[in-house]
């Protein structure tokens, strides 16, 4: 009855059959899908498999993936964030406008932006835990409010609907190096967003599978009442998850700003659904409690490959959305099927 775990002996005997454990991985369906898409476009599209082409595809995937990963965590925790898309724009606008209006070092804008964006995330989470309203409603509200604030404040402060160029300001070059530069890996030119993306996937996977917080995230999404009953700080987990989305929105926002120097205040609307779709393709359950960060990353990769693959293949882009929709449905069905099989064989 005491026996607190102290020893670190390996206990391989306790593990189940490898095949079943593998098939229970949430990202498996997405991986199968990703390989299929890759093979498909490798055959159909010239230039898709060339290093430069893959670099472009990975860049497209990373800009979605940076957001899809924390959105996936949030969904595992049982909630949505519809404000994630415009929050990216808000973050970029705050950073740019602070630096410009205060004539401050751009890093000051970056820091202020981090605080403001985290505050938005905190607001989402706090309102959710206080009101107990569905997150769909709360973040829909934040989404609309942010859209309005982005447009209204940008116009009010700057006089136009896009921000002023801050490329000639101090700290811009170093900030660009961090958020929007290229790195060369073994002869390949890769965007730094890919590094951010992979780092986020690694961090999120570590948190989910190897920390107490991860256990709590699964439990919060899987059965919040049970989690609360055994002492899991469910509300803090939720607030933390929303702030995680905000953190990623900050990274994406700074990338947007330091890539293009100028931010259009109307951007970002609609991207939130792409993040959610990537997470779902990656095996996240809409109802929470199940999913993985790696899966969301693979989901983003499928998005990246499809959207750019159609360009490489020089197809009529009118069909792009149809392809994505079909892909989403197929991936979800595949996931459901795999999970059923996994559960049946146990």
């Amino acid at each position, binding site marked *: *009855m005491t026996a607190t775990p102290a020893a*670190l002996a390996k206990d391989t005997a*306790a593990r189940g059959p490898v095949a079943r*454990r593998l098939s229970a991985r949430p990202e498996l369906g997405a991986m199968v899908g990703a390989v299929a898409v890759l093979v498909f476009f490798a055959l159909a599209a010239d230039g898709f498999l060339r290093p430069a082409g893959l670099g472009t595809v990975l860049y497209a995937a990373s800009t979605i993936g940076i957001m899809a990963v924390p959105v996936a965590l949030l969904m595992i925790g049982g909630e949505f964030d519809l404000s994630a898309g415009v929050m990216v724009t808000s973050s970029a606008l705050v950073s740019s406008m602070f630096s410009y209006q205060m004539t401050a070092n751009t890093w000051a804008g970056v820091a202020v932006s981090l605080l403001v964006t985290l505050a938005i995330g905190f607001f989402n989470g706090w309102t959710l835990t206080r009101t107990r309203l569905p997150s769909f409603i709360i973040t829909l509200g934040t989404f609309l409010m942010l859209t309005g604030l982005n447009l209204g404040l940008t116009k009010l402060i700057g006089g136009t609907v896009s921000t002023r160029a801050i490329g000639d300001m101090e700290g811009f070059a170093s900030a660009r190096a961090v958020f929007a530069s290229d790195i060369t890996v073994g002869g390949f030119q890769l965007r730094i967003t890919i590094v951010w993306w992979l780092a986020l996937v690694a961090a999120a996977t570590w948190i989910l599978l*190897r920390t107490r917080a991860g*256990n709590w995230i*699964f439990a919060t999404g899987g059965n919040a009442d*049970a989690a609360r009953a055994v*002492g899991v700080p469910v509300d803090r987990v939720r607030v933390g998850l929303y702030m995680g989305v905000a953190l990623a929105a900050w990274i994406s926002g700074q990338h947007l700003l330091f890539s293009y120097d100028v931010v259009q205040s109307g951007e970002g609307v609609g991207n939130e659904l792409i993040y959610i779709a990537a997470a779902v393709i990656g095996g996240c359950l809409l109802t929470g409690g199940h999913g993985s960060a790696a899966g969301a990353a693979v989901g983003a990769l499928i998005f990246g490959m499809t959207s750019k693959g159609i360009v490489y293949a020089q197809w009529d882009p009118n069909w792009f959305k149809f392809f994505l929709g079909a892909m989403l449905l197929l991936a979800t069905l595949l996931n459901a099927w795999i999970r059923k099989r996994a559960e049946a064989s146990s």
Partner: protein
Amino acid sequence: MNGTSTAAAGSPTALVELAGVGKRYGNATALEGVSLAVRPGEVVCVLGDNGAGKSTLIKIISGLHRHDGGAFRIDGEEVRLASPREALDRGIATVYQDLAVVPLMPVWRNFFLGSEPVTGRGPLRRLDTAAMRRTTREALLRMGIDLRDVDQPIGTLSGGERQSVAIARAVHFGARVIVLDEPTAALGVKQARVVLRYVAAARDQGLGVVLVTHNPHHAHLVGDRFVLLRRGSMAGSHAREEIALDELTRQMAGGSDLDRLGHELARTRPSGPDRGAP
């Protein structure tokens, strides 16, 4: 099944003691003047119909709600619990009927939920997964549960097994008192038997058990003392020796109220019902 428990009763300080405890929600009185005491190795059964105040009682003992009348003592010390966490820290673990587990999570993650052991330090602080898996298996084995794979989602276990895992978890984490909320309600006869066996196993390990149920048959199998609730107040408290199963069933089913109903109905029907509402 008896013997050891009756010897324990009566002597040491109660692990948990309620004396005239009450709880109001606004103007509505949910609970009033309820007293009970749980000692090590003793099973106290709380019986009552729906709405009798059983769940309010559980919420008070488990720290979800605070009582606002009477005294609540743990080890003789008067307390007002602020949270389930505080109750856990004081050795009171509650196993809810349907909230016990997170179905999609593996058994071992469920087992340690909320009390996960960690290893390493700084940014490398991480779950001690190997120890968690091993300990889960061992703790379950000690309770007589043999799972071939602790990695399977706990939702794939049967209802009885899930309850048993939850009980084993409480025992493992040093609970001295386990509060069981209708552990057998949704189970078939066979599954219920399994769960009751684990209740007895916990008792035999020296734990105090509060078994909340509306099934007098199950209660009488393991209980040392029976507290009856009716409409938020105590309708009786009997030691096992003082009351037979028939009488317990009758009281549980409504007692004298039911007798009166029986007389009323006797005009149209020859005999009164012998079973209360479920």
